[in-house]
């Protein structure tokens, strides 16, 4: 079920605690102490490693979602407005 019961006793962090801090961890926006504790936990917990990896993956994938473009008429109006405003 879990493979980290002994190690977690040392890091003092349960899986449930860890999952709450993952986004800060990935952004490297946490105290060095918390970072070490998370690192210790991850070193011995497959499930939390999977979880962190999935959040990282989803977050990265979001930056490459399919593009949406303006309706052609809207784009045309924007181009006209831009040309009018910035023509020399």
């Amino acid at each position, binding site marked *: 079920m879990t493979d980290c019961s002994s190690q977690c006793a040392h890091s003092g962090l349960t899986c*449930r605690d860890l999952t709450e801090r993952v986004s800060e961890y990935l952004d490297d926006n946490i105290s060095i102490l918390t970072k070490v504790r998370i690192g210790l936990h991850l*070193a011995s917990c497959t499930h939390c490693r999977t979880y962190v*990896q999935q959040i990282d*993956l989803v977050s990265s*994938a979001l930056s490459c979602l399919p593009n949406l473009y*303006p309706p052609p008429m809207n784009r045309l109006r*924007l*181009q006209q407005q831009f040309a009018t405003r910035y023509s020399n």
Partner: protein
Amino acid sequence: MNADIAMYTESIGHFPSMSRKSPAIKSSGLTKAEDTVIARLKRGDEGAFDELVNQHHSALVRMAMGYVADREVAEEVVQDTWMAVIEGLNRFEGRSSLRTWICGILIHKAKDRGVREKRHTTFSAFESYEDDNEEAVDPSRFQQSGELAGHWAFPPQPWDDRTPEKLLVSQQAVNAMQRAIEALPSTLKEVLILRDVEGVDAKDVCEMLKITETNLYVRLHRARERVRAAVETAIG
């Protein structure tokens, strides 16, 4: 090093210090690339304007849909935003990044439109995010009691698609992500779109939304977890 860690290192590539720095944007001021774009825009370079629209339109529409009811109205709000960008470009001094400035205009207009349509109140009533103590991951997935309390009872199963590119090839995964984003309440949606879809620096997101970093990460993580859970259900 045990086998699990070795495998992990291979698949992500940066364990144990697998932290991810934000994209190369300075928290204030402009990147060199933005400097160039702005100079081209101010010269009236139509190609530069088209590129700007292509680059940011998706995120603006997705963000607007956190405040208004449908895609059509969202497109109107974004169109108004682009008009304001054209109008204000000459006065833009680069105290924030170009996209921070554009997103700021969008949020202002979308909120305004949402309030006028009284949609905003409907959305807020839909789900309230005042309770910062609510956990991101469904608590029933953890052991409730005993020596292993707080440890996974129903852990996430590893996905076959371990790169963003592979994940996005799966139409099921993409649809699940899009639907999950659409279903987010605006407070969660705006942080997710700004930070992950648009890649805005965490500090800039806080400034734009007038929230603390603690708030930001609470919301960002709830939003990411909802999208992750949706993908998990779709492909798991």
